[in-house]
C-alpha cells in the first residue's frame, strides 16, 4: 500500500514539475504580449499626451493584469524611493515575480529603461517602437517554444514520474 502511495506521489511531483515548466513557457508568451500592449499605450501617453512617468506608471498599473501590473507598481515604488528611473525600471524588470522572461528579453527591456523619460519625444518614440518590434520577435519565438517544448515538457514530466514509480515498485 505504502509503495503505491509513494509511486503516486512521485508521479504527481514529476507531472507538476513538467507542467510547471510548460506553464512557465505559456506565462512567458502571455507576459511578452502584455508588455507589447503596455508599451504601445505608453508610447501614446509619452509622445502624444506628454504624461509624466509617475502618473503614467500608475495609469499602466491600473490598466494591466498581473504580473505586468505588479511590474509597474514595483517600478513606481522604486522611483518613489528616489532611485533614478533607469535603475527603478531595471530593478522592476529583474525582480518582479512571475515575468518568466529570458535574459535577452530582460536586457531588451532594461535598455529601454535607460532612454525613457530622458530624451526628446521623438527619440523616445523610436526607442519604444524598436523595443516593441524586438518583443514581437521574442513573442513569436515564445509561441514556437510553447508549441514545441511545452507539450514535450508536460509529457516528459508524467513519463519520468511513471518510470521512477515503476523502478521503485
Amino acid at each position, binding site marked *: 500500500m505504502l509503495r503505491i502511495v509513494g509511486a503516486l506521489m512521485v508521479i504527481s511531483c514529476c507531472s507538476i514539475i513538467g507542467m510547471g515548466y510548460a506553464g512557465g513557457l505559456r506565462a512567458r508568451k502571455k507576459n511578452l504580449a502584455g508588455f507589447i500592449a503596455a508599451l504601445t499605450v505608453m508610447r501614446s501617453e509619452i509622445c502624444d499626451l506628454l504624461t509624466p512617468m509617475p502618473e503614467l506608471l500608475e495609469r499602466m498599473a491600473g490598466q494591466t493584469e498581473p504580473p505586468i501590473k505588479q511590474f509597474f507598481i514595483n517600478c513606481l515604488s522604486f522611483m518613489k524611493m528616489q532611485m533614478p528611473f533607469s535603475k527603478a525600471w531595471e530593478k522592476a524588470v529583474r525582480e518582479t515575480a512571475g515575468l518568466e522572461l529570458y535574459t535577452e528579453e530582460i536586457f531588451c527591456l532594461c535598455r529601454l529603461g535607460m532612454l525613457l523619460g530622458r530624451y*526628446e519625444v521623438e527619440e523616445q518614440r523610436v526607442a519604444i517602437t524598436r523595443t516593441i518590434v524586438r518583443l514581437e520577435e521574442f513573442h513569436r519565438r515564445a509561441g514556437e517554444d510553447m508549441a514545441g517544448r511545452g507539450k514535450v515538457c508536460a509529457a516528459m514530466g508524467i513519463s519520468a514520474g511513471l518510470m521512477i514509480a515503476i523502478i521503485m515498485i
Partner: protein
Amino acid sequence: MDITDSLVSRYDEAVGLFPRPLRDEFIRLPVGEKALAEEFRLRAGKMAAVLLPGGEKAVRVPMTLADLGRITEAATEASMHSTRESLKNGYITAPGGHRIGICGTAVVKDGEVTGFRTISSLAVRISKELIGIGRELTGSLFENGEFLSTLIISPPGGGKTTLLRDIIRLVSDRGKRVSVADERGEIAALKGGIPQFNIGRHTDVLEFCPRAQAVIFLLRAMNPQIIAMDEITGPEDFEALRSAVGCGVKLLATAHSASTGEMKKRQLYREMLSCGIFERIVVIDNNAGKRSYRIEHCQ
C-alpha cells in the same frame, strides 16, 4: 499651522528633491534660516548654498554634475518630455510648484533650445504659501462689491506669486469665479488635478498653457469673472488681457518692476498702464526680507 511652520514645510519639501548628503546638510539649518530661505544655489564644482535675505550661505557639500543631473531628474520626475516647453525657457517646475532655473550647455535645434547637454547650475526657488498675507489688502481691491482689475508689481523674487496666490484664494472664497492661467504651474501646483496650494473654492486652473492662449481658452470655456495670471512679459499677454477686459472680465496679474515709475520706462508696461485695463496697482516693498504692500490707483 502658523507662518513659520508653513515656510519650513515648503523648505523641507524643496530639500526633498536633493540627494542624501546635501539634503541632510540643508535639513540641519536652524528653523529661523529655513523660514527666511528664498532659493538654493547649486553650481557644479562649488559648495551648495542657500539664499537668505542677507546673501548666500554655503554648506559643506560640493556639487557635482551627477548631483545636478539627479536633482533635475527628481524635479522632472524622470519625464523630460513633460517639461520640454518650460525647459526651452530655461526652467522647470518641480512638484510642489518650486521653480528651478537651469544653466549649462544648451542644445539648440532649428534655432530653438530643446534641452541641456550639461547642467552646470541650478537655482531652486522655494515656492511659498502664506495664507492670509493678502487679507488686509483685498478689501481695498473691491468697490461696490465688484473686484477692481489689479496688477501686482515687485522686482524678481519679491513675493509676487505668493501674494497673487493668496489674493486669488481670498477673492475666490468671496464667491467670485476665478480662472487662473498658470503657465509655469507655480500658482496652483496641480497634482493629479488637485491644487497643492489653497487657491479658493471657486477657482479653475489651466496649467502649462501659454498665457495668452490660456486667457482665450478660459474666456471661451470657463465663464470667468476674474482671470489671474503670473508675470505679464510679452505683447501677446497684453493683447489677450485687453480682449478679456473687453469681454467684461476683471484681471489679477503680476509684472516685474520695482515701481510704477520704473514700469513706465518699458514701452509694453507704459501702454498697459495708459490703456486703463488695470484699476489698482499693488507695489511690494522689500526691506531686508520684510515685505509691505502699497496700493496705487491707476490713472
